[in-house]
């Protein structure tokens, strides 16, 4: 009996250790960065809107150079990105097999998962990319860097970022009415874009006949 209880206790302790290590690592890293700042007399630089604006402009250029032209236009025009989920393989495991789903990526807000066919919101995935070196006192990346980090993480390893995120029901941080409005705006934006592309194609076809 005692042996069994001891074994159970050891397993529980090992699991707790495994779970708490990343959190402890982050806390230690933050503490080290904070001490380093104190040592160098850096009390945190004052907020400089010019610096933040320049950082955001650089971040937008980086984002633009990485995502597809359609995605860049979506972010520029609507302020968010849509990324299709990759776990809906018809032969795969899980609830979403065969069902198309997608994510909306907002800067510094949770990633929102939804079903494009119905507009039904599935979950919010609260995730941040805090830089604990805090070069100017804040751990927040520029908006467009935050969006690009989410885009790359979803593209490159969807399961990993979803596992790292805090999962919540829709409405926890992002207003569902806002998301529904954004989905409506996205639909209208896509229709207009499609119509423009069709018009441009028709004009191109007509040109040789005119010439």
């Amino acid at each position, binding site marked *: 009996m005692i042996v069994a209880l001891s074994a159970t206790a050891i397993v529980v302790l090992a699991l707790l250790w495994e779970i708490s290590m990343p959190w402890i690592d982050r806390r230690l890293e933050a503490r080290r960065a904070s001490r380093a700042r104190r040592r160098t007399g850096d009390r945190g630089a004052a907020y400089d809107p010019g610096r933040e604006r320049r950082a955001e402009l650089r*971040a937008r250029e980086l984002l633009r150079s990485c995502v597809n032209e359609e995605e860049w236009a979506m972010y520029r025009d609507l302020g968010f990105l849509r990324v299709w989920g990759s776990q809906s393989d018809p032969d795969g495991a899980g609830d979403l097999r065969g069902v198309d789903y997608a994510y909306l990526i907002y800067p510094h807000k949770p990633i929102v998962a939804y079903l494009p066919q119905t507009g039904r919101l599935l979950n919010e995935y609260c995730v941040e990319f805090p830089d604990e070196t805090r070069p100017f006192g804040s751990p927040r990346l520029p908006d467009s860097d935050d969006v690009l980090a989410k885009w790359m993480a979803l593209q490159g390893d969807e399961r990993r970022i979803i596992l790292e995120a805090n999962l919540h029901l829709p409405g926890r941080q992002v207003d569902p009415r806002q998301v529904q409005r954004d989905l409506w705006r996205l639909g209208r934006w896509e229709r207009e874009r499609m119509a423009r592309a069709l018009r441009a194609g028709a004009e191109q076809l007509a040109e040789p006949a005119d010439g």
Partner: protein
Amino acid sequence: MKFLRMRPGFGEQLIAEGDVEVAEEERELVDAFRRQLDLGMWAAVPTVRSDGRREAEMVRAFEEIPRDTGRVIFFPRAAGGAA
């Protein structure tokens, strides 16, 4: 190959650059890559598929980086936010 790191207040910063075909420069890139991972960064490589579609790959080791890639982007690892 360029290593870029996203940083608050900066946008991206160039943290290393070198030619992977030159042994010494490759060693320096390997060291820089490990340093960033030790600092808790995630690394991603922007890629372009044969049909022109842009994507990204997450890489956990230097050997996973395609030899012909132009840049690797480092960013702080994800943490569950605003619980």
